């Protein structure tokens, strides 16, 4: 199936994450990509972090202009921690887009272990999401989640709430449309600021 991501904002944000790269050839006039560089050209051998989309486009040239290294969360030290007990890891701080970025970056992992770490981590942390979704505490009380984990949890909480209110309420209430309500709320907030 063809890629459906072109217009996806979340995919754009994922591919905007920075990854460490080593430049293999000189790149004229691109010195500005390296904040510490003083020269106009970017020299072969320079190690810098650049957004994934740029890294990919440089990597896919023939010959490749860069070699892409793994961000630290996917490196061996972290992989060991994740495989042991991923539920203790603060994904909010270490991997906002852990799974999504991991999928893109896996091909740069020579050992091929990123894939199993991703799957393993996902399966382990699923339990956290599961319990967070039925917990009465707020989402923030669980071990910090990655962006997509958070979205998943929020969706599960919505389902859970809908179900428990269904169990309580007899009638199927008609309500104000979402956008209408939110715009009105925002307008009220703006009025109060004035």
């Amino acid at each position, binding site marked *: 199936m063809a890629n459906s991501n072109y217009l996806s904002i979340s995919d754009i944000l994922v591919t905007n994450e920075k990854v460490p790269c080593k430049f293999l050839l000189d790149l004229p006039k691109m010195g500005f990509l390296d904040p510490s560089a003083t020269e106009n050209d970017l020299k072969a051998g320079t190690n810098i972090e650049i957004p994934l989309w740029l890294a990919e486009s440089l990597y896919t040239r023939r010959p490749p202009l860069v070699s892409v290294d793994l961000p630290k969360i996917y490196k061996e030290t972290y992989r060991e921690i994740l*495989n042991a007990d991923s539920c203790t890891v603060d994904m909010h701080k270490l991997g906002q887009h852990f*799974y999504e970025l*991991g*999928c*893109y970056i*896996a*091909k740069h*992992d020579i*050992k*091929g*272990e*990123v*894939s*199993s770490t*991703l*799957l*393993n981590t*996902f*399966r382990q942390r*699923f*339990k956290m*999401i*599961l319990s967070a*979704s*039925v917990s009465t505490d707020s989402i923030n009380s669980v071990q910090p989640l990655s962006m*997509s984990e958070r979205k*998943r949890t929020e*969706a*599960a909480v919505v*389902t*859970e709430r*809908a*179900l428990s209110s*269904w*169990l309580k309420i*007899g009638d*199927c209430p008609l309500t104000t449309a979402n956008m209408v309500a939110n715009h009105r709320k925002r307008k009220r907030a703006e009025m109060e600021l004035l």
Partner: protein
Amino acid sequence: MDPFEIEFIGENRIVSIIPNFSHDKIYLICGEFGPFRAGLPMNVPLWLAVMLKQKQKCRIVPPDWMDMEVLENIKEEEKRSRFFTKMPHEHYMVEAKLLLGAAAEDIPRASEVKTIIKDIWDIRMSKLRTSMDALMKSGGSYGRLDHLTMMEINSVKPLLPQAMDELHKIKMMTRTSASATLNNSTFTQSGSSQNI
């Protein structure tokens, strides 16, 4: 789907009422019902039963399963079994909620009935969560879910199917790197199906 939509589907289920009025057959698009004879039991769709009850035009005949003895057995069985047991029918929870809501006085020991049905529901919901976790751990690509009712299935959406989608996406996107080193992978992928 929204629980109210599942309820809407469940409302087509046929239940028995005893009308307090007489009327000829009514020809609805979903079928013919009647004739209505005051005092004589007859079958109508659940939505119609609730509507007539609210207009005080009928009494509800409690479904066979809405009986403490039957329910005690179901509860015991559900507690004992590792799997989901067969419920009285696909929409037991919808029927219970609507009939106990609109016609509690027609159902003997209504408040006990209500409590025990909620107990059964809670046992099943907690079993469901355990099963979801087990399904993900065992591979997360296929599961069998006999005897789960539509409302129960709906309660794991979108969480379970989306998590399975995500697992599949990770496998698909990282396939090339993974297949090369599958043998020394620290994680074993089980293709076997999980019964939940």
